């Protein structure tokens, strides 16, 4: 079996473990709300700040809402946002990077000027600036983080395209009379996919982390809709009475990120066998 022209058996144990964690989280995000019925917003005042117990397997939060339901819906929020943000950053980065790298000249210079300006900001600072403009909402986060992470994709894609455009097969495509657009789509784009895949996996982790940080700051997913980040934020005053409210959402973020990082490492080792030693 092969993916992107590489054989699967070389995916090592940690890669499989990472893939397992990631698959589980994605399945919980997609199927959880269907399989486990319950309302993440339903109030049960008897369960207020209650630890894990009957009726509420993972306890209740400061309003007596079921923590397990909120974690499951939080997974859905995180994965949903991370998926669309990564897609947005990768797709726009591919378009800009290929245009700049392949057409060169003024197009390249102008596009890269803007790109370098965006790269001159720390990622989270740029995202915070965009959040100030768009306001705290799901769509706001996707656009803000997507724009903040796009420049990294542009760099990688442009670099790849610059080395590709000198190769014989691109020359051959031109000689055959193909238009620039056809050459870009059929010969340049497919060759950019390997490095972009590596970046996409890493970025998926960055986005999950950044989204939870923004939500923790109150600039991400607005309450009452649950996200792992805003659950941590609202639980802060109750850390002493109900430590499970702090422990559980953070554990969810960490385990998911661990899965993403291990999977990302495996994919990178796979594409860059040097690192395996």
């Amino acid at each position, binding site marked *: 079996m092969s993916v992107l022209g590489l054989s699967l058996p070389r995916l090592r144990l940690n890669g499989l473990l990472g893939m397992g964690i990631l698959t589980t989280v994605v399945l919980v995000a997609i199927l959880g709300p269907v399989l486990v019925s319950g309302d993440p917003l339903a109030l049960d005042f008897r369960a207020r700040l209650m630890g894990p117990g009957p009726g509420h397997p993972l306890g209740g939060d400061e309003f007596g809402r079921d923590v397990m339901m909120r974690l499951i819906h939080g997974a859905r929020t995180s994965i949903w946002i991370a998926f669309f943000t990564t897609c947005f950053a990768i797709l726009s980065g591919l378009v800009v990077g290929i245009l700049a790298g392949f057409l060169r000249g003024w197009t390249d210079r102008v596009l890269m000027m803007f790109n370098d300006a965006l790269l001159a900001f720390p990622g989270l600072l740029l995202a915070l*600036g965009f959040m100030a403009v768009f306001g705290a909402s799901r769509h706001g986060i996707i656009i803000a983080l997507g724009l903040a992470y796009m420049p990294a994709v542009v760099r990688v894609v442009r670099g790849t395209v610059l080395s590709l455009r000198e190769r014989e097969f691109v020359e051959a495509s031109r000689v055959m009379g193909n238009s620039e657009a056809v050459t870009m789509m059929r010969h340049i784009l497919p060759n950019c996919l390997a490095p972009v895949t590596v970046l996409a996996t890493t970025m998926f982790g960055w986005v999950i982390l950044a989204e939870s940080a923004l939500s923790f700051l109150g600039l991400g997913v607005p309450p009452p809709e649950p996200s792992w980040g805003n659950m*941590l934020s609202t639980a802060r005053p109750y850390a002493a009475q109900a430590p499970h409210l702090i422990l559980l959402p*953070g554990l969810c*973020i960490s385990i998911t990120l*661990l899965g993403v990082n291990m999977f990302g490492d495996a994919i990178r080792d796979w594409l860059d066998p040097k690192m395996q030693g």
Partner: protein
Amino acid sequence: MLKFLLTRIASAVPTLLIVTAAIFALMRMIPGDPAVLMLGDMAQPGQVEELRQRMGLDQPLPIQFVTWLGKVLSGDFGQSIATGEPVLPLIFERFGVSASVVLIAVVLASVIAVPAGMIAAWRQNSLGDVAIVGTATLMLSVPSFWLGLMLLTVFGLWLGWLPVVGYVSLADDPTAGLLYLIMPVLTLVMVEAGAITRMARASTIEVARLEYITHARAKGLSERAVMWRHAFRNAFAPTWTLIGLILGSLLANIAVTETVFTIPGLGRMLIDGIFARDYPVVQGCMLFIAFIYVAVNLLVDLIYPLLDPRVAA
């Protein structure tokens, strides 16, 4: 050497100019008229019009930008809408707080992580390597705000060893200041050491494969001499860039840690500004953080030739 320095410094000027323009544009995209924001909802239309004229908001955007840029260059970052205080002195004050936390944390993290990464690389695929890489990956996966909250709950609330809320400046009271710094610094060290360890390991592995290392070994040098005299300098250079990037970006990322530990730093000032729609504060903080980020990266590049003999200046 001088030419390299000057070219590199000059190359930062257009970057800074575009960064300033980007922040200016971003602030103008924030919904709502700044004049209305400043006067509140109860203002008369006449008053708003007068303030708009006084603030130059009736001028075309490019002229507004040039006027604003001139003020920024002369050190006038405007006044906070909420308090009326000038923004720049406030930024300097808050920056001192954030910078002390960030600097201590990054230095400690590097001192721990660089040797750890190199040892892991030297004993690649050994049990020690697996343990170090595993720990680093684990630390990379823990969000700083969660780690901070957990430390706060355990050492502050349960054990009562460390103060939970507030901040005391090191300059005012060194002992108390140090007590307040322990948890925030520990949080950042643990989170950032993961990334640095992995980078140090990867670049050492890259270097250890090169022929001159084999040659050094063939000469009969001890492993320690090969590692420190020959591998370290070349392997450290990429890690140095990463440390610079972390140092620069932490100034923005620290907003989260400052929120957890209620530290009155620059990051917190930015977040509070965003909530209060105090756009001169937001603008000033963003500009300052971006400026420091560019400056730190510039400094890292300038020091690079001293570390990496292959980059001839």
